[in-house]
């Protein structure tokens, strides 16, 4: 039995084969709705191939804040039979399917779903020799079905094709208009929301947001080797290099990427790089280098489903264990996992300040679901930001110099040493991956193991590690979503907050006592504070996208608090709100049975 679509919300999915322009069609739907004043979340059902197969794009829009894919489908636009077959069962009653009956058979249409057949191909071929324009025709039909002014779509089309031949844009508008008219003249809109065309809402992926945040935090050096789903970051950087004055180094591999990032940071730049899991493996040794030389770097890992090559276009939160164990032996690191695009923007800024203040590597974990595969509305993008470079000296203080060398690795009360930028006269120092003394002299050769140097080695290791204690004070506590003191608490980290939020909203409507604790600052955990917060929760449900419950294990390790239940997903698909809802409902039964 199909569900009823949610009041005030729209869920739309368009699907076809790779190469059919689904991504750009989906983005145009997104733009239309976002320029109509709605909040947006999208998801890109991609495959790892260039043409063929089956891909889809999902848009969730509402008059209020959306977080994930929402519930079911109000509109399905299947451009191929496979697209219909794969998705029609999700259609909500009260929704519609927009399709071309000459190429798609809308069998077994769920009850209450409107059949909006439109001769997409025929219309398209009237405006172009190739049928690619049927996407645009479908967009026109969709706009009519949701009652959006056609002008909005026309403008989106113009912007989209603006750079090409003007006739391309005009033909597309015409084709769209025809699609619009077919549906419009037939009937009133299938589902109409209230639209406000006066101010478009910024929308972006976490990948783009973190790029902007980084550049606004003073990062002008970016190094990359392409890897899905992190590639959009380098595309953005490359596209803005001239305008924003960015230095982009396209390296031969991720080893080079990470080492170059360390080099640039050592030289005094704010430097960042990004990759996905497989590339991160290659970066690990150089992350250890950054930690040992106390060089501040920011590294973004956009997680995808593994292990190994895995499913390059599918999502996962499976890289946390790797981040807890990067390279060998103990060194400090910070791990942040913003929940969405907006938070990613600010996370980039925080990451650089943390990295430079404590002279440690900072890792930001995104995932495909928000990093490349999903746009979301960014309500507030405040570029006002205070760059804090920590202890950066332009001349040595007393005791900071021995006539030859600057005391770069001085043992200080807060375990952070003064830094100098190469090029500064008289502040020469050597950054060493071998253990070293305060002056950067080698402790692995003639000094290693001597009675007097073993304790110094101990102190250098302590100096580095103890920075984590201070950093704990800067880590944000998990954010509470929903009322405090609920019967059931959903524990999320990073992007798993999103479906959980929509589920909780729905569960509240159903009178369930549930809330969420959303972690975006992952490591170092402020154990005392986190333990206290977790202990206030009653039944705890861990929601994350990996097999072993990596974050729950971290909590167990560092706080001793165990989860009561787990919703772990690892089929490559993102978590849908309905899955969280069902899980919580099943638990409620248990909770009640016990009570």
């Amino acid at each position: 039995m199909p569900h009823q679509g949610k009041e005030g919300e729209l869920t739309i999915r368009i699907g076809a084969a790779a190469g059919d322009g689904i991504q750009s069609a989906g983005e145009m739907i997104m733009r239309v709705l976002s320029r109509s004043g709605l909040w947006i979340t999208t998801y890109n059902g991609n495959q790892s191939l260039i043409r063929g197969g089956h891909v889809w794009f999902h848009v969730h829009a509402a008059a209020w804040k959306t977080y994930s894919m929402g519930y079911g489908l109000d509109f399905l636009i299947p451009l191929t039979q496979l697209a219909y077959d794969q998705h029609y069962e999700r259609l909500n009653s009260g929704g519609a399917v927009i399709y071309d009956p000459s190429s798609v058979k809308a069998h077994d249409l769920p009850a209450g779903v409107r059949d909006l057949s439109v001769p997409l191909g025929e219309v398209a071929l009237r405006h172009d020799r190739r049928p690619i324009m049927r996407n645009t025709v479908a967009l026109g039909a969709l706009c009519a079905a949701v009652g959006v002014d056609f002008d909005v779509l026309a403008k989106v089309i113009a912007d989209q094709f603006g750079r090409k031949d003007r006739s391309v844009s005009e033909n597309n508008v015409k084709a769209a208009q025809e699609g619009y008219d077919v549906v419009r003249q037939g009937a009133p809109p299938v589902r109409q929301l209230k639209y406000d065309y006066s101010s478009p809402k910024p929308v972006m992926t976490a990948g783009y947001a973190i790029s902007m945040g980084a550049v606004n935090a003073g990062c002008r050096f970016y190094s990359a080797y392409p890897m899905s789903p992190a590639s959009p970051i380098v595309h953005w950087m490359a596209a803005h290099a001239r305008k924003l004055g960015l230095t982009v180094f396209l390296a031969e591999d991720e080893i080079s990427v990470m080492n170059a990032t360390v080099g640039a940071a050592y030289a005094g730049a704010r430097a960042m790089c990004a990759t996905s899991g497989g590339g991160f493996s290659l970066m690990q040794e150089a992350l250890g280098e950054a930690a040992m030389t106390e060089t501040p770097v920011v590294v973004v890992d956009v997680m995808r489903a593994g292990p190994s090559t895995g499913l390059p276009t599918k999502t996962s939160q499976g890289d946390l264990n790797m981040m807890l164990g990067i390279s060998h032996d103990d060194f400090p690191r910070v791990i942040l996992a913003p929940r969405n695009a907006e938070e990613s923007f600010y996370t980039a800024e925080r990451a650089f300040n943390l990295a430079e203040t404590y002279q440690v590597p900072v890792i930001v974990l995104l995932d495909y679901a928000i990093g490349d595969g999903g746009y979301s509305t960014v309500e507030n993008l405040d570029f006002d930001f205070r760059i804090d470079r920590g202890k950066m000296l332009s001349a040595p203080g007393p005791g900071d110099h021995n006539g030859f060398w600057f005391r770069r690795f001085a043992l200080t009360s807060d375990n952070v040493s003064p830094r100098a930028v190469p090029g500064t006269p008289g502040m020469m120092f050597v950054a060493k991956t071998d253990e070293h003394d305060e002056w950067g002299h080698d402790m692995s050769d003639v000094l290693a193991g001597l009675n007097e140097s073993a304790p110094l080695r101990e102190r250098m290791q302590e100096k580095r590690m103890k920075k984590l204690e201070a950093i704990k004070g800067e880590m944000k506590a998990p954010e509470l979503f929903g009322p405090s003191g609920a019967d059931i608490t959903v524990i999320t980290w990073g992007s798993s907050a999103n479906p959980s939020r929509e589920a909780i909203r729905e569960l509240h409507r159903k009178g369930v006592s549930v809330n969420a604790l959303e972690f975006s600052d992952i490591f170092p955990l402020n154990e005392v504070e986190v333990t206290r917060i977790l202990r206030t929760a009653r039944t705890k449900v861990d929601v994350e996208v990996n097999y072993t419950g990596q974050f729950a294990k971290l909590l167990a390790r560092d706080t001793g608090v165990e989860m009561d239940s787990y919703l772990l997903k690892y089929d490559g698909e993102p978590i849908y709100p309905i899955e969280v809802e069902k899980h919580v409902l099943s638990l409620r039964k248990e909770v009640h049975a016990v009570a």
Partner: protein
Amino acid sequence: MLDPKLFESDTRADWCPGCGDFGVLAALKDALLKSGKQPHEVVVVSGIGCSSNMPGYIRTYGFHGLHGRPMPVAIGIKCANPRLTVVAAAGDGDEYGIGFNHVVHAARRNDDIKLIVMNNEIYGLTTGQLSPTSRLGQKTKTSPEGSIIYPIKPLPTILGAGGTFVARTFSGDPKHMSLVIQEALKHRGFALIDAISPCVTWHNIYDEVKKLFYKLEDRGYKPDDEQKAYEAMNDPNGIPIGIFYRTEDKASFQERLGEVNGGRWPVDEVKTLPESVCRSLALEFA
């Protein structure tokens, strides 16, 4: 007047007495001095190995990084601040083995890094194993019966990859080495200096090299022809030293970067964005 102590460190090199690397250290100091560099303008970047202990023995900024990775660190530094003179210095294992790909790609990009490879045909620091330049038949800890692996030919490989300055020197002749390094410092882009630097402990080839080496310039050689360079490198009867090939026709990668970033280099631009830019960025995808 140049102060000959300008680049002196307070730290004694821990190389074995007689190690070729002393000659390279002396040559590098001399070349920097004669090129009019100041210590704070120079960064010496190394990997891991006996030879890579170089930074700290010479008073400049230094980065003593990972085995095989001096090149990308050096490139990161140079891209962040091209005003710095960036020298990479490491061993044959480091640069022709594990890290060779970085060298090859730096050569083709023409990154403005001067790379000195202290080639001793052995892994010194790890106590004498086969290196990529070790010879067929060479007995080492990993080839106790003699190596069965053909050695790499770094110079023609780098020339093939597009190298714009390819030279060989010998630590037994630090004066000549200094001259070559001085030329490299003037070069527009990437310079590979293969520095024969014998390991007296695990593979002492001093006498042999002394017997066989000769200077290209002494034979009237001009380093302006790729084809001739290949021939010169492959001399089976002797060990030529000097500059095999050099061209100033190619822009360095950093020059080209500067055209894109408009000379706004990362070290100078640690600042937020102007407000005007922000607004348009925010709405880019809407």
